[in-house]
Protein backbone atom coordinates (compact mmCIF):
# COMPACT_ATOMS: atom_id res chain seq x y z
CA UNK A 1 0.00 0.00 0.00
CA UNK A 2 1.27 3.46 -0.83
CA UNK A 3 0.95 5.48 2.35
CA UNK A 4 0.00 9.07 1.65
CA UNK A 5 2.93 11.50 1.84
CA UNK A 6 2.78 14.33 4.41
CA UNK A 7 1.15 16.79 2.04
CA UNK A 8 -1.72 14.35 1.66
CA UNK A 9 -1.94 13.92 5.44
CA UNK A 10 -2.40 17.68 5.82
CA UNK A 11 -4.98 17.68 3.04
CA UNK A 12 -6.92 14.87 4.72
CA UNK A 13 -6.80 16.69 8.05
CA UNK A 14 -8.22 19.81 6.36
CA UNK A 15 -11.00 17.71 4.83
CA UNK A 16 -11.79 16.31 8.28
CA UNK A 17 -12.12 19.91 9.57
CA UNK A 18 -14.61 20.65 6.78
CA UNK A 19 -16.49 17.48 7.78
CA UNK A 20 -16.80 18.85 11.32
CA UNK A 21 -18.25 22.08 9.96
CA UNK A 22 -20.75 20.16 7.85
CA UNK A 23 -21.70 17.92 10.78
CA UNK A 24 -22.14 21.02 12.95
CA UNK A 25 -24.57 22.42 10.39
CA UNK A 26 -26.48 19.12 10.48
CA UNK A 27 -26.51 19.21 14.28
CA UNK A 28 -27.20 22.90 14.92
CA UNK A 29 -29.00 24.21 11.81
CA UNK A 30 -31.98 25.33 13.92
CA UNK A 31 -29.76 27.66 15.95
CA UNK A 32 -28.85 31.13 14.72
CA UNK A 33 -25.74 29.84 12.93
CA UNK A 34 -23.87 31.90 10.39
CA UNK A 35 -20.74 31.29 8.36
CA UNK A 36 -18.65 33.52 10.64
CA UNK A 37 -19.52 31.38 13.66
CA UNK A 38 -18.86 28.15 11.73
CA UNK A 39 -15.47 29.47 10.61
CA UNK A 40 -14.49 30.58 14.12
CA UNK A 41 -15.23 27.06 15.36
CA UNK A 42 -12.46 25.62 13.16
CA UNK A 43 -10.11 28.65 13.29
CA UNK A 44 -10.57 29.66 9.66
CA UNK A 45 -11.66 32.91 8.06
CA UNK A 46 -15.19 32.89 6.67
CA UNK A 47 -13.93 33.42 3.12
CA UNK A 48 -11.41 30.58 3.32
CA UNK A 49 -13.98 28.22 4.84
CA UNK A 50 -16.55 29.08 2.15
CA UNK A 51 -14.09 28.42 -0.67
CA UNK A 52 -12.68 25.19 0.78
CA UNK A 53 -16.12 23.86 1.72
CA UNK A 54 -17.41 24.52 -1.77
CA UNK A 55 -14.40 22.76 -3.31
CA UNK A 56 -15.04 19.72 -1.12
CA UNK A 57 -18.84 19.50 -1.17
CA UNK A 58 -19.90 21.40 -4.28
CA UNK A 59 -21.81 24.10 -2.43
CA UNK A 60 -20.93 26.79 0.08
CA UNK A 61 -21.57 26.33 3.82
CA UNK A 62 -24.31 28.96 3.67
CA UNK A 63 -26.00 27.09 0.84
CA UNK A 64 -25.69 23.78 2.73
CA UNK A 65 -27.10 25.37 5.89
CA UNK A 66 -30.10 26.77 4.00
CA UNK A 67 -30.65 23.45 2.19
CA UNK A 68 -30.63 21.70 5.57
CA UNK A 69 -33.13 24.19 7.02
CA UNK A 70 -35.43 23.89 4.04
CA UNK A 71 -35.21 20.10 4.14
CA UNK A 72 -36.44 20.22 7.73
CA UNK A 73 -39.07 22.82 6.81
CA UNK A 74 -40.40 20.53 4.06
CA UNK A 75 -40.80 17.75 6.63
CA UNK A 76 -42.61 20.03 9.09
CA UNK A 77 -44.88 21.44 6.36
CA UNK A 78 -45.77 17.92 5.18
CA UNK A 79 -46.96 17.20 8.71
CA UNK A 80 -49.49 19.98 8.22
CA UNK A 81 -49.90 21.09 11.85
CA UNK A 82 -47.64 24.18 11.78
CA UNK A 83 -47.99 27.50 10.01
CA UNK A 84 -45.35 28.65 7.53
CA UNK A 85 -44.22 31.32 10.00
CA UNK A 86 -43.84 28.79 12.82
CA UNK A 87 -41.87 26.49 10.53
CA UNK A 88 -39.62 29.34 9.40
CA UNK A 89 -38.52 30.18 12.95
CA UNK A 90 -38.44 26.53 14.02
CA UNK A 91 -35.78 25.69 11.41
CA UNK A 92 -33.55 28.61 12.40
CA UNK A 93 -34.47 31.26 9.82
CA UNK A 94 -34.81 34.74 11.32
CA UNK A 95 -36.53 36.32 8.30
CA UNK A 96 -39.75 35.05 6.74
CA UNK A 97 -38.88 36.86 3.50
CA UNK A 98 -35.49 35.16 3.14
CA UNK A 99 -37.01 31.81 4.11
CA UNK A 100 -39.77 32.12 1.49
CA UNK A 101 -37.30 33.16 -1.21
CA UNK A 102 -34.86 30.31 -0.49
CA UNK A 103 -37.66 27.76 -0.14
CA UNK A 104 -39.22 28.74 -3.46
CA UNK A 105 -35.81 28.71 -5.14
CA UNK A 106 -35.03 25.19 -3.92
CA UNK A 107 -38.43 23.48 -3.96
CA UNK A 108 -40.00 25.23 -6.94
CA UNK A 109 -43.05 26.54 -5.09
CA UNK A 110 -43.63 28.79 -2.07
CA UNK A 111 -43.88 27.14 1.39
CA UNK A 112 -47.64 27.77 1.71
CA UNK A 113 -48.37 26.04 -1.60
CA UNK A 114 -46.07 23.16 -0.63
CA UNK A 115 -47.93 22.74 2.67
CA UNK A 116 -51.29 22.53 0.83
CA UNK A 117 -50.05 20.09 -1.83
CA UNK A 118 -47.70 17.72 -0.01
CA UNK A 119 -49.49 16.59 3.16
CA UNK A 120 -48.75 12.85 3.58
CA UNK A 121 -46.62 12.62 0.43
CA UNK A 122 -43.96 10.33 1.96
CA UNK A 123 -46.38 7.93 3.66
CA UNK A 124 -45.72 4.27 2.94
CA UNK A 125 -42.11 4.79 1.86
CA UNK A 126 -39.58 2.84 3.98
CA UNK A 127 -37.85 5.21 6.45
CA UNK A 128 -34.32 4.76 5.08
CA UNK A 129 -35.59 5.58 1.58
CA UNK A 130 -37.75 8.47 2.79
CA UNK A 131 -34.65 9.95 4.39
CA UNK A 132 -33.02 10.11 0.96
CA UNK A 133 -35.89 10.94 -1.38
CA UNK A 134 -37.44 13.71 0.68
CA UNK A 135 -34.17 15.66 0.73
CA UNK A 136 -34.28 18.69 -1.52
CA UNK A 137 -31.85 18.61 -4.45
CA UNK A 138 -30.20 21.92 -5.20
CA UNK A 139 -29.89 22.50 -8.92
CA UNK A 140 -28.82 26.15 -8.81
CA UNK A 141 -26.64 28.12 -6.44
CA UNK A 142 -28.11 30.22 -3.65
CA UNK A 143 -28.28 33.86 -4.72
CA UNK A 144 -26.86 36.66 -2.59
CA UNK A 145 -24.50 34.45 -0.62
CA UNK A 146 -24.39 35.60 2.97
CA UNK A 147 -20.72 34.77 3.46
CA UNK A 148 -18.20 37.25 2.05
CA UNK A 149 -16.90 34.55 -0.29
CA UNK A 150 -14.93 37.07 -2.34
CA UNK A 151 -13.36 38.76 0.66
CA UNK A 152 -9.62 38.20 1.01
CA UNK A 153 -8.84 35.31 3.32
CA UNK A 154 -7.08 36.10 6.57
CA UNK A 155 -4.98 32.95 6.41
Amino acid at each position, binding site marked *: *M*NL*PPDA*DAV*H*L*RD*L*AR*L*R*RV*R*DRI*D*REYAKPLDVEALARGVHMSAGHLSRQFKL*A*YGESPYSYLMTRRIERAM*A*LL*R*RGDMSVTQVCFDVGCASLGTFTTRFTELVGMPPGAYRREQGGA*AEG*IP*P*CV*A*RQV*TRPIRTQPVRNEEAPADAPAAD
Partner: protein
Amino acid sequence: MELTIHSTFLPHNDPDAALGFYRDTLGFEVRNDVDYGGLRWITVGPPGQPETNIVLTPPAITPGITDEERRTLVEMMAKGTYAMIILASRDLDATFEKVQASGAEVIQEPTDQPYGVRDCAFRDPAGNHVRINQVK
Protein backbone atom coordinates in the same frame (compact mmCIF):
# COMPACT_ATOMS: atom_id res chain seq x y z
CA MET B 1 -32.47 -21.46 1.48
CA GLU B 2 -31.90 -19.59 4.69
CA LEU B 3 -29.15 -16.99 4.63
CA THR B 4 -27.89 -14.77 7.42
CA ILE B 5 -25.73 -11.66 7.25
CA HIS B 6 -22.26 -12.81 8.31
CA SER B 7 -19.81 -9.95 7.78
CA THR B 8 -19.87 -6.40 6.57
CA PHE B 9 -16.85 -4.13 6.15
CA LEU B 10 -16.06 -0.64 7.35
CA PRO B 11 -12.76 1.13 6.63
CA HIS B 12 -10.54 2.42 9.43
CA ASN B 13 -7.45 4.62 9.26
CA ASP B 14 -6.21 3.98 12.82
CA PRO B 15 -6.72 0.50 14.32
CA ASP B 16 -6.33 1.63 17.94
CA ALA B 17 -8.79 4.49 17.52
CA ALA B 18 -11.22 2.08 15.85
CA LEU B 19 -10.91 -0.32 18.81
CA GLY B 20 -11.48 2.58 21.20
CA PHE B 21 -14.77 3.37 19.50
CA TYR B 22 -16.21 -0.04 18.62
CA ARG B 23 -14.94 -2.01 21.64
CA ASP B 24 -14.61 0.52 24.47
CA THR B 25 -17.45 2.92 23.60
CA LEU B 26 -20.02 0.78 21.77
CA GLY B 27 -19.23 -2.33 23.86
CA PHE B 28 -18.64 -4.68 20.92
CA GLU B 29 -16.53 -7.79 21.47
CA VAL B 30 -13.35 -8.28 19.45
CA ARG B 31 -13.61 -11.59 17.61
CA ASN B 32 -10.44 -11.43 15.56
CA ASP B 33 -7.51 -9.06 15.18
CA VAL B 34 -5.26 -9.91 12.26
CA ASP B 35 -1.98 -8.09 11.70
CA TYR B 36 -0.54 -8.60 8.23
CA GLY B 37 2.37 -6.53 7.01
CA GLY B 38 1.61 -3.77 9.51
CA LEU B 39 -2.03 -3.57 8.45
CA ARG B 40 -4.82 -4.70 10.74
CA TRP B 41 -8.17 -6.33 10.13
CA ILE B 42 -10.29 -6.24 13.29
CA THR B 43 -13.51 -8.24 13.52
CA VAL B 44 -16.03 -6.90 16.05
CA GLY B 45 -19.69 -7.42 16.85
CA PRO B 46 -22.29 -7.07 19.59
CA PRO B 47 -22.08 -9.76 22.33
CA GLY B 48 -25.77 -10.58 21.82
CA GLN B 49 -25.39 -11.16 18.08
CA PRO B 50 -22.50 -13.62 17.67
CA GLU B 51 -23.25 -14.54 14.05
CA THR B 52 -22.99 -11.04 12.59
CA ASN B 53 -19.63 -9.32 12.24
CA ILE B 54 -18.23 -5.96 11.28
CA VAL B 55 -14.71 -6.21 9.87
CA LEU B 56 -12.77 -2.99 10.36
CA THR B 57 -10.41 -2.96 7.45
CA PRO B 58 -7.57 -0.81 6.07
CA PRO B 59 -9.04 1.29 3.24
CA ALA B 60 -8.41 0.88 -0.46
CA ILE B 61 -5.90 -1.96 -0.34
CA THR B 62 -7.76 -4.29 -2.67
CA PRO B 63 -5.50 -5.16 -5.63
CA GLY B 64 -6.63 -3.36 -8.76
CA ILE B 65 -7.46 -0.06 -7.12
CA THR B 66 -5.54 2.74 -8.83
CA ASP B 67 -3.69 5.50 -6.95
CA GLU B 68 -6.32 7.99 -8.10
CA GLU B 69 -9.15 5.80 -6.83
CA ARG B 70 -7.33 5.30 -3.53
CA ARG B 71 -6.89 9.05 -3.15
CA THR B 72 -10.58 9.65 -3.85
CA LEU B 73 -11.60 7.00 -1.36
CA VAL B 74 -9.49 8.29 1.54
CA GLU B 75 -10.66 11.83 0.74
CA MET B 76 -14.27 10.71 0.91
CA MET B 77 -13.58 9.03 4.27
CA ALA B 78 -12.01 12.23 5.60
CA LYS B 79 -14.85 14.46 4.39
CA GLY B 80 -17.41 12.00 5.73
CA THR B 81 -19.16 10.96 2.53
CA TYR B 82 -17.98 7.35 2.20
CA ALA B 83 -19.37 4.61 4.46
CA MET B 84 -22.41 4.38 6.72
CA ILE B 85 -23.86 1.80 9.07
CA ILE B 86 -27.12 1.81 11.03
CA LEU B 87 -27.14 0.19 14.46
CA ALA B 88 -30.07 -0.12 16.84
CA SER B 89 -30.53 0.27 20.59
CA ARG B 90 -33.35 -0.55 23.00
CA ASP B 91 -32.51 2.61 24.94
CA LEU B 92 -31.44 5.21 22.40
CA ASP B 93 -31.13 8.11 24.83
CA ALA B 94 -28.87 6.22 27.26
CA THR B 95 -26.77 5.00 24.34
CA PHE B 96 -26.48 8.53 23.00
CA GLU B 97 -25.34 9.88 26.38
CA LYS B 98 -22.70 7.19 26.68
CA VAL B 99 -21.31 7.65 23.17
CA GLN B 100 -21.35 11.45 23.46
CA ALA B 101 -19.53 11.25 26.82
CA SER B 102 -16.73 9.29 25.10
CA GLY B 103 -15.95 12.39 23.04
CA ALA B 104 -17.20 10.95 19.74
CA GLU B 105 -18.25 13.53 17.14
CA VAL B 106 -22.02 14.03 17.24
CA ILE B 107 -23.89 14.54 13.96
CA GLN B 108 -27.39 14.41 15.37
CA GLU B 109 -28.91 14.25 18.83
CA PRO B 110 -31.81 11.82 19.37
CA THR B 111 -34.60 13.04 17.08
CA ASP B 112 -38.06 11.84 16.05
CA GLN B 113 -37.85 11.76 12.27
CA PRO B 114 -40.89 12.60 10.15
CA TYR B 115 -40.61 9.14 8.54
CA GLY B 116 -41.30 7.42 11.86
CA VAL B 117 -37.84 6.57 13.21
CA ARG B 118 -36.22 7.94 16.33
CA ASP B 119 -32.45 8.04 15.82
CA CYS B 120 -29.16 9.77 16.51
CA ALA B 121 -25.88 9.87 14.59
CA PHE B 122 -22.14 9.99 15.22
CA ARG B 123 -18.84 9.78 13.35
CA ASP B 124 -16.53 6.90 14.11
CA PRO B 125 -12.83 7.89 14.33
CA ALA B 126 -12.32 7.23 10.59
CA GLY B 127 -15.20 9.53 9.59
CA ASN B 128 -17.74 6.77 8.90
CA HIS B 129 -21.36 7.80 9.48
CA VAL B 130 -22.78 5.73 12.35
CA ARG B 131 -26.53 6.06 12.89
CA ILE B 132 -28.34 4.46 15.81
CA ASN B 133 -32.08 3.74 15.68
CA GLN B 134 -34.38 3.26 18.65
CA VAL B 135 -35.73 -0.31 18.62
CA LYS B 136 -39.51 -0.10 18.67
